[in-house]
């Protein structure tokens, strides 16, 4: 939570205001002004690099914290009551004592806030004092300073593996190409290296950097939080400008990799850096229950108002009955009596104070506690733990746990969520000829289907079994010279690698499964043939395109070594992401990142062996097994020195798994990309010659164009060639001369399209490759417009895209690839379970319809018997017509069954078998756009309601989120979105519950999500078990809380009828505080955290149980009113039985209150006991403990309070009562009478109309074999006979 004090806010507002006058920021070097005073510094108005994320200072803690806390309505309510109590005519209690509850709550919150803030302060200090190198003119060199000393305009040098202290414009690197690599894992979780370039014109090759000669002005945009956008230019004294973009900016918090040193000028510092601006606090969402609860709190306010009104009127009327004032009506200090109307008016406020507990302020605190407990248990679930990633489920949103139990619509991404997102090169088609890569397929079949995980692991351990200890020795060798801390880190890394060693597959895009591609023999021959003969040709072009048309970064093994050393730093860098206030989250994320890094590390080191094994002839199964990750660590460590010397060994840092798969496929055919610099790409050909292409431009991928291109100059032919790769439609539409009569190209296109369709049917991801030879003139003309676009500041994106579209035309098709993305484990089962739980599952994907449909079938989203409507059209009228037709058809079908689809789920499940015609809908992006337009959206939504499955293909991230929004708003349903990539972020944020799958594509999705899981299958348990539990627990607890407060406070209310509505409390005020604070607070909280109605195994085997949450059956308005009614009844009983017992006796006020207090404690505790569904040790301890605490505390209090709390002073009252047998008789009778109705109704309902949950609970009592049979029958028939057979066998015991 980045909190800013009002003071700093003001300051910032001030500076921002000034900045707005100049929408750009100008930065000049600080060096000429080094000795001047601060006032004369040119960059003085920019923030320094010291950060302060703590809210408070020592002196301001109390006032500011109080100020903060009084923002909460509940606290204001409390304070209002306390103030009211200080008004003598109104007060109900001792004013000082009335302050106690608010003081306790404020103090507790203050302690919590203070502690968190102190922790934040400590980290800030740690960060501010980290060392860095700043250039000083006087010394003419970089000197070591602290981070906090960095100012805008300073020149800072960052060494390899150091963390960047501020946002620095890169002006110099040690790399001859002016390149610097940066790892952004701390920022966005992406582990691949990002390349940064020196600002054009500043790459003074090889020369040492001389900041003192820097005399230009840096002009850039004002600070913003866009990590991917930055623009500006450097203006030299001679007015020459050179533009730069995000690829010249080193971001604070990132780590420099692979580069000895990098230096530049600081443009943003401290809180203005992009990483700090990106640091949003935890997300605050309000859950459905909470929204409902808030309206019920309003009902309580209303109720309170009426009760106070009754009190006020009652008092006034009561006073009116006296002609002369009797001796028990006390006049004011002057001896005068106020008028009865005025007295009634005052009494209204007194009543508010007296009955304040009616509004369950403590409910909010308790809910927070309960949710913390629920989150604790969710994260502790061993079933949701992923061994491979060593990660648990993460709860990032702290207050919507129970929403997990109410989901009605699930929107899922496909790639990486349903599938592994581990791309495996499967087939390709080149110049219209298909190469099916049988051998590769066979190998994959062995790995995938041949054996399950465990078998595989054992095989591998048999085949290659160096004992584990060499690993330690070697590691120690490497780390021996470092300090102790390093050794520990290394030890940790060792543990990690061992954990992962047992796992089947790995995180990064270069697991052996992807790296190893067995070349197709036929294609290999073809390539060899072309290589040998002409040195050029479509086949070579195809593989060259595969090898260079990407953004993969090559990193050498040397660099990897250094990254291992960098471990120590990364522990700092983790905390530099400043996600304060969320301590545990930070640390977990940080560990997560570092573990990811480590695995990558290990794999990339292992790469040489993968290459070794790439010779097709020597390939056999055992060689694959040799490349198993775990063992590879050992061997690569052992051969470390050797591999260092073999400098041509490379490993790839790919942005996307597709690229990794393709580049490895190219490598398999001998086309190895060995180096990539901004200027050149070097590819090693199968005949070991190196081709060094000059890169003229890269047109990067974007989701609108859906393709990328690279323009290079061929070293031999000097031709300018553009290689393009992209989605098939995106490339096909740009092909030249296809529509001409010329048959060869057309034939190729047609055949390729046929192959592509086949690939899609097989569920492969397709990419097309094309080539274009550009003439010098054409290129020159285009290049100038491109440069203009590049240096533009306004609408840069649009202009860049325009230029890209200008050149990407008249392409020549080379071929296409088919990449397989395997389904994750248990996806079909999970989808089925979610379905049976009443959730509608939608899949939204950017893939083409054929692929998506195929995946949908294989993951059981669609069934082969389903009626599938496919909507793909470009015309709105067609779309409209189809929508109407389909809708009427669907309506006919449903109408025939006479069922409203909205209510089919819950009832039909158990009323009998029903042949539901299931409808699937497939719709593609452009059509979806039309369907979501104003006039068609109603029909579309109506149709979707009838569909069992909806599949949206070719949708953009924005469309994904708009689909979610439309469904959420139009149908008023609870939605859940699950996704893994940056393209799912919109959707995740639009849904009620966003779930991020931490997978292959970085951490953006996880960062944006409310819950982060590692596998799709975890969704089942998260929703069906934890969601259900959390929902019913919280719903029950909230209801109980309302009941509890009303029941207790009504005792006081009934008493008003017997004390002239004078606001007397017959219970000592301290005991009333204790009652809420100690005696009855723990049980409901425990109830909210630990109650378990149905066990997890039953919930999983009977997903139908989930529907209760969907229909909000745990907490409805009726439930609330029933609870309130019950509370009224119970309070009446608790009041009137003692009343009739003690009427016309010599009992004193507080002696009268004692049995009532006791009785309501018993009633409230036992009421909960009726509600508690499973009693564990904890339950017993807390329930019995609460009663014991009551008696002990009350006895102790009344033993010492002789005149401590006038006027009640309950000295010896409790003892006296407890010595009286009547006390016990009253307590027992009252408790029984109070609880009898609820208990009896529960019993009758349980016997005559058992709910689904009750039957499920009865199932649990059966022996397991019997239970399984019952569940099968239940599923099979879903009718009444099951319940019959059930209860005949169930519950023989009491």
């Amino acid at each position, binding site marked *: 939570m980045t909190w800013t004090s009002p003071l700093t806010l003001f300051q910032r507002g001030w500076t921002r205001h000034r900045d707005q006058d100049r929408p750009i920021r100008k930065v000049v070097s600080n060096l000429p002004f080094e000795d001047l005073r601060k006032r004369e510094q040119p960059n003085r108005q920019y923030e320094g690099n010291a950060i302060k994320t703590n809210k408070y200072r020592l002196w301001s803690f109390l006032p500011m914290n109080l100020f903060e806390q009084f923002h909460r309505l509940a606290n204001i309510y409390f304070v209002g009551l306390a103030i009211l109590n200080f008004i003598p005519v109104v007060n*109900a209690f001792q004013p000082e004592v009335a302050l106690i509850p608010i003081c306790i709550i404020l103090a507790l919150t203050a302690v919590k806030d203070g502690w968190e803030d102190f922790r934040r302060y400590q980290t800030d200090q740690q960060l501010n004092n980290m060392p860095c190198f700043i250039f000083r003119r006087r010394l003419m060199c970089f000197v070591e300073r602290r981070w906090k000393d960095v100012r805008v305009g300073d020149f800072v040098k960052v060494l390899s593996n150091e963390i960047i202290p501020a946002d620095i414009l890169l002006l110099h690197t040690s790399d001859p190409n002016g390149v610097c690599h940066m790892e952004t894992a701390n920022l966005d979780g992406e582990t691949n290296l990002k390349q940064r370039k020196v600002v054009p014109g500043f790459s003074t090759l090889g020369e040492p950097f001389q900041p003192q000669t820097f005399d230009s002005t840096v002009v850039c945009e004002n600070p913003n939080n866009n990590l991917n956008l930055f623009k500006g230019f450097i203006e030299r004294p001679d007015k020459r400008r050179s533009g730069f973009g995000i690829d010249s900016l080193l971001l604070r918090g990132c780590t420099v990799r692979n580069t000895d040193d990098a230096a530049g000028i600081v443009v943003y510092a401290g809180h203005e850096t992009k990483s700090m601006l990106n640091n949003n606090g935890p997300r605050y969402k309000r859950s459905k229950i909470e929204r409902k609860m808030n309206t019920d709190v309003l009902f309580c306010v209303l109720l309170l108002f009426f009760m106070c009104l009754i009190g006020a009127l009652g008092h006034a009327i009561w006073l009116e*009955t*006296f002609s002369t*004032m*009797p*001796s*028990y*009506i006390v006049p*004011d*200090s*002057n001896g005068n009596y106020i008028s009865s109307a005025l007295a009634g008016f005052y009494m209204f406020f007194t009543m508010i104070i007296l009955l304040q507990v009616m509004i369950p302020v403590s409910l909010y605190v308790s809910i927070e506690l309960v949710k913390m407990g629920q989150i604790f*248990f969710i994260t*502790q679930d*061993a079933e949701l*733990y992923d*061994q491979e990633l060593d*990660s648990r489920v993460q709860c990032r949103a702290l207050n919507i746990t129970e929403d997990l139990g109410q989901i009605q619509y699930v929107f899922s991404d496909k790639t990486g969520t349903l599938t592994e997102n581990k791309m495996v090169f499967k087939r390709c088609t080149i110049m219209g000829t298909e190469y099916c890569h049988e051998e590769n397929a066979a190998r994959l079949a062995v790995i995938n289907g041949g054996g399950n995980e465990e078998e595989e692991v054992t095989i591998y351990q048999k085949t290659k079994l160096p004992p584990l*200890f060499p690993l*330690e020795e070697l590691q120690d060798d490497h780390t021996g010279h470092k300090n102790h801390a390093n*050794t520990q880190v290394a*030890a940790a890394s060792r*543990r990690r690698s061992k954990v992962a060693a047992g796992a089947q597959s790995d995180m990064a895009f270069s697991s052996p499964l992807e790296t190893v591609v067995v070349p197709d023999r036929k294609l290999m021959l073809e390539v060899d043939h072309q290589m040998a003969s002409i040195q050029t040709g479509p086949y070579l072009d195809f593989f060259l395109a595969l090898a260079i048309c990407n953004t993969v970064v090559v990193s050498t093994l040397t660099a990897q070594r250094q990254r291992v050393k960098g471990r120590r730093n990364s522990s700092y860098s983790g905390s530099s992401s400043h996600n304060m206030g969320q301590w545990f989250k930070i640390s977990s994320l940080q560990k997560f990142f570092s573990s990811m890094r480590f695995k990558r590390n290990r794999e990339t080191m292992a790469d040489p062996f993968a290459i070794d094994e790439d010779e097709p002839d020597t390939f056999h199964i055992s060689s694959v097994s040799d490349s198993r990750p775990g063992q590879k660590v050992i061997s690569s460590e052992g051969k470390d020195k050797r591999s260092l010397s073999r400098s041509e060994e490379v490993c790839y840092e790919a942005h996307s798994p597709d690229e990794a798969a393709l580049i490895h496929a190219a490598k398999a055919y001998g086309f190895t990309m060995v180096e990539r610099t901004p200027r050149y790409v070097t590819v090693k050909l199968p005949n070991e010659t190196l081709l060094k292409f000059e890169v003229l431009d890269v047109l990067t991928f974007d989701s609108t164009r859906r393709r990328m291109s690279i323009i290079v100059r061929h070293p031999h032919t000097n031709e300018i060639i553009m290689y393009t790769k992209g989605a098939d439609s995106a490339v096909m539409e740009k092909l030249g001369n296809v529509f001409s009569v010329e048959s060869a190209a057309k034939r190729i296109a047609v055949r390729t399209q046929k192959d592509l369709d086949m690939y899609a049917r097989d569920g492969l991801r397709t990419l097309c490759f094309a080539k274009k030879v550009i003439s010098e003139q054409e290129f020159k003309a285009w290049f100038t417009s491109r440069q203009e676009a590049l240096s533009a500041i306004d609408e840069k994106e649009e202009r860049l895209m325009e230029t890209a579209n200008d050149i990407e035309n008249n392409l020549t098709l080379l071929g296409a690839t088919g990449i397989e993305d395997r389904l994750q484990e248990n996806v079909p089962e999970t989808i089925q379970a979610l379905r049976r739980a009443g959730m509608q599952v939608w899949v939204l994907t950017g893939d083409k319809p054929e692929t998506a449909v195929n995946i949908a079938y294989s993951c059981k989203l669609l069934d082969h018997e389903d009626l599938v409507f496919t909507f793909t059209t470009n015309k709105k009228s067609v779309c409209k017509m189809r929508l109407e037709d389909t809708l009427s058809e669907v309506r006919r079908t449903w109408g025939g069954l006479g069922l409203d689809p909205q209510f089919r789920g819950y009832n039909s499940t158990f009323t009998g078998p029903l042949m539901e015609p299931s409808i699937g809908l497939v719709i593609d992006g452009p059509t979806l756009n039309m369907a979501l337009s104003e006039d068609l959206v109603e029909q579309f939504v109506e149709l979707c309601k009838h569909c069992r499955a909806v599949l949206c293909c070719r949708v953009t991230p924005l469309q994904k989120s708009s689909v979610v929004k439309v469904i959420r708003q139009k149908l008023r349903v609870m939605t859940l979105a699950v996704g893994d990539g940056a393209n799912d972020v919109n959707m995740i944020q639009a849904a009620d519950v966003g779930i991020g799958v931490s997978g292959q594509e970085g951490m953006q999705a996880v960062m944006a999500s409310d819950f982060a899981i590692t596998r799709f299958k975890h969704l089942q348990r998260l929703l069906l078990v934890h969601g259900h539990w959390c929902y019913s627990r919280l719903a029950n607890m909230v209801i109980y809380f309302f009941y509890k407060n009303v029941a207790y406070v009504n005792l006081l209310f009934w008493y008003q009828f017997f*004390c002239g509505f*004078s606001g*007397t409390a*017959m219970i000592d005020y301290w005991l009333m505080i204790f009652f809420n604070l100690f005696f009855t607070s723990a049980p409901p909280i425990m109830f909210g955290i630990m109650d378990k109605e149905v066990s997890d195994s039953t919930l999983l085997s009977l997903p139908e149980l989930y529907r209760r949450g969907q229909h909000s059956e745990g907490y409805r308005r009726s439930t609330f009113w029933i609870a309130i009614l019950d509370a009224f009844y119970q309070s009446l009983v608790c009041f009137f*039985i003692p*009343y009739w017992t*003690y009427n016309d*006796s*010599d*009992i004193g*006020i507080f002696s*009268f209150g004692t049995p009532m207090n006791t009785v309501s404690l018993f009633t409230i505790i036992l009421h909960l006991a009726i509600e508690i569904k499973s009693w*564990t*040790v*904890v339950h017993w*301890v807390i329930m019995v403990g609460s009663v014991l605490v009551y008696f002990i505390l009350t006895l102790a209090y009344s033993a010492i309070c*002789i*005149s401590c709390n*006038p006027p009640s002073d309950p*000295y*010896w009252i409790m003892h006296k009562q407890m010595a*009286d*047998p009547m006390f016990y008789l009253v307590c027992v*009778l009252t408790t*029984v009478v109070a609880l*009898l109705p609820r*208990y*009896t109704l*529960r019993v*009758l309902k*349980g*016997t005559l109309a058992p709910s689904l949950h*009750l039957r499920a609970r009865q199932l649990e009592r059966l022996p397991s074999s019997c239970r399984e049979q019952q569940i099968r029958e239940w599923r099979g028939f879903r009718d009444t*006979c099951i319940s019959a057979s059930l*209860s005949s066998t169930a*519950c023989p*015991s*009491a």
Partner: protein
Amino acid sequence: MMASSYNAKEEDGHHPGLVGSGGPGAVKSKKPDNTAFKQQRLPAWQPILTAGTVLPAFFMIGLIFIPIGIGLFVTSNNIKEFEIDYTGVDMSSPCYNCAQNYSWNSTSVCTCTVPFTLDQPFESNVFMYYGLSNFYQNHRRYVKSRDDSQLNGDKSSLLNPSKECEPYRTSDRKPIAPCGAIANSLFNDTLELFYIHPNGSKIGIHLVKTGIAWWTDKHVKFRNPGGSNNNLSVVFQDTSKPVNWRKAVYELDPADPENNGFVNEDLIVWMRTAALPTFRKLYRIIQKKKDTMTPTLPPGNYSLEVAYNYPVRSFDGRKRVILSTISWMGGKNPFLGIAYITVGSVCFFLGVVLLIIHHKYGNRNNNADIPN
């Protein structure tokens, strides 16, 4: 459900995880501990509320409650209680004149004699109560209008009573002792009981005026200022009497120093404010006679002599004298006994209903099972 042992102390908040210096076994993974608590697998008792399971409970409650109720009812019926209303509302009432003329300010003492007849003898100790109706001793401002520290003998509070006592805090610039509205409205009727011997002679009955307050009140909560200083008039010399009182606090019982001043039991009893507007307060105890043969109050004619000081007309109040014997359950109150019997019967009835339901329900199920 398998019962794996759970040790709360070991698990709560404690992160196990081997933190060794890095042996091969020290894998510090984030894998959650597989303990019953954390995995929510604690052995649990899961009661299901159905007719079959709760039947015994209903019958049990019925079987226990009915005898208790009968016992209470019988006990309550055995208690003898006699109530005399001497408010004097009716013209025929002997105290009518006193009631009509009386106000707080009158100086003369109005007495009236109420004759009554006891039909049954009162065995053992007889408790004599005065009862007031419609007297809201539980009015909030009235309840607060006292100073417990002053009553506890605190010297400074004696001279500077709590503000809560306003407007009965000072009079004539002197602090009032005891201050406050409660003390000010102390019940000040004097009640005397005479047995009218069949031969016409009037025999006074000895009324014991101590032992009517709680022991703790008399000895701990209420204390005279000045400790053992017996000369209370000196102790209270700087204070003034409550405005409605006829005599100062140190003149409440000049005969018995142990019952004088703040520790006067009549005062103590009055100061323990009643919970409900209709209440009684213990006034005197008629001790059982030494020779156990004759009852404490034999049947016959009695007369109650009232020094009628306490005005109740303004609030439509009633004043009563109650003579009652006492059992372990206190005074006569049939309510609890009846309530117990009723609730016990209801439970028993419910038990029978549930039994029928259970029986029918079970049969239906069994029948349904067979054809399938």
